[in-house]
């Protein structure tokens, strides 16, 4: 499981890591004059990013939602669907 903050973190981490690996891969490939090296570095980066941001690491669940215990919840009445509030017609203002 991931909490809300974990989800945000995972998504940002995924985007930042991929862009960073792409920049590193492109520069490495260009400087070394090897297209193959660029692809290999990027492939490694994608693999590492997958490993870090896709599984449900406990790391992403450090701010769990606190749900009420069922026994506590039953002590309170469930909120009933309310009648739509009556719209009052505007009275003509007195002169």
């Amino acid at each position, binding site marked *: 499981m991931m909490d809300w903050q974990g989800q945000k973190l995972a998504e940002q981490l995924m985007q930042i890591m991929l862009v960073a690996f*792409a920049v590193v891969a492109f520069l490495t490939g260009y400087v070394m004059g090897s297209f193959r090296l660029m692809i290999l570095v990027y492939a490694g980066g994608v693999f590492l990013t997958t490993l870090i941001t*896709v599984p449900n690491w406990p790391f992403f669940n450090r701010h769990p939602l606190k749900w009420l215990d069922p026994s506590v919840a039953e002590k309170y009445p469930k909120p009933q669907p309310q009648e739509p509030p009556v719209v009052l017609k505007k009275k003509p203002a007195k002169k």
Partner: protein
Amino acid sequence: MHSFGYRANALVTFAVTILVIMCAMASFSDNFNSPSPTASVQVLNINWFQKQLHGNDEVSMTLNISVDLQSLFTWNTKQVFVFVAAEYETPKNSLNQISLWDGIIPSKENAKFSIHTSNKYRFIDQGSNLKGKEFNLTLHWHVMPKTGKMFADKIVMTGYRLPEDYR
């Protein structure tokens, strides 16, 4: 919503999008390369020159082809296809092109060479126009990149002439 599959899908989509951008940049970086290839082709010998039974002229020659195409290679080049064509004008057609020899250069290390060969493909005119004909030998090449569009260019070498008589 934020499940394993959802995150894997988002990651793959984003990763492939970035890969497309990287390939586009690699292709664009080829524009910074300004190649200066050199080539020279010598006709060492006319082996034979005759009229076929149907009336078409055919000539066989020995060529020496020296080229240096190393500057065409960049990090985004897969291979270079190169061919030598004889080009000449006849009363009927303003340009006749006959491929005499071709080759595929797989890497920069193999891009500078000098070979001695008779024409790989037959030099036959569609007619009887070759006697004493002046012709050009043109080295054409097509650069095939790993990503992006192909480039083609040529070097035209002039001043060749076929013999006046069959032999």
